[in-house]
């Protein structure tokens, strides 16, 4: 795969756009189609593309396995933390209205962090599963 010049050049050009698209889908997901899941899958796809073309070792240098494993759990913890923040600030669990000044601001903030947590976990799990499948009997 790494001998094919066209493949390498094209992926070098494409991968930044794919990552940018993933970030766009994540953060713009409140105003248009998108959200955490789509963004997580697209971001993982960008890294998988890099790994497919340049080899698994190159991918391990860019995205170390320990970082990916941490991402798997960090997103869920972020989600739970937003819920607990609701309790700490006086409301119910996962009640976003108490997180900001006006309830609408609190909702906006809560949705933002929750979607971010979802995106982190989904991309971490997809990438980790790819590592496991591709790295077995490597």
């Amino acid at each position, binding site marked *: 795969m790494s001998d094919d010049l066209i493949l390498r050049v094209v992926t070098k050009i494409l991968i930044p756009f794919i990552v940018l698209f993933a970030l766009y889908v994540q953060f713009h997901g409140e105003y248009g189609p*998108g959200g955490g*899941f*789509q963004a997580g*899958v697209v971001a993982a796809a960008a890294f998988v593309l890099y790994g497919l073309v340049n080899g698994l070792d190159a991918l391990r240098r860019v995205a170390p396995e320990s970082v990916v494993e941490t991402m798997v759990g960090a997103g869920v913890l972020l989600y739970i933390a937003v*819920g607990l923040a609701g309790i700490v600030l006086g409301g119910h669990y996962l009640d976003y209205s108490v997180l900001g000044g006006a309830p609408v601001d609190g*909702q*906006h903030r*809560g949705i933002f962090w929750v979607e971010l947590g*979802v995106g982190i976990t989904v991309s971490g799990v997809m990438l980790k599963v790819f590592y496991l499948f591709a790295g077995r009997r490597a």
Partner: protein
Amino acid sequence: MALAVVALVRTRVLFAVVVLSGVYSFLMGVVLFALDAVDVAMTEAAVGAGVSTVLLLGALSLCRAREARPAARPWVPLVVAIGTGLLLVYGTLGLPLPSDPHAPVHTHVVPRYLEQGPAEAGIPNIVAAVLASYRGFDTLGEVTVVFTAGIGVIALLRRKAKEER
């Protein structure tokens, strides 16, 4: 799409099965987009045509399998499947017509979400608002499911095959 599925049923070369499943998922994404389900279409295209295909190819290369052998007795499953299909057709006769504005899918809670969603949650994308705010517990469960699947795959595939022998 129906053609892709029929070809998938009939073919025995596993690589073709995987490619056809990617094609099918992408076509399903297009159909979902035509049905105005934009979030769902994006997720189905990304997940079905992207991640699923990569995982299937990975598993295929690990199992080193190329052809499926034909089924031993294809008639019994065919009869069972077609029988279930007839039952399903009988079931759909009782369902409301699609694109009926008075169907329950459009009347109970949905008008409230559509009218007060931007005011209460502050974001125009109602699907994201319902996912993250109105039905936030369900999304918490879903993230936990993804996390658990990741943990499960890690537990199953952590050590290399050679070390266990």
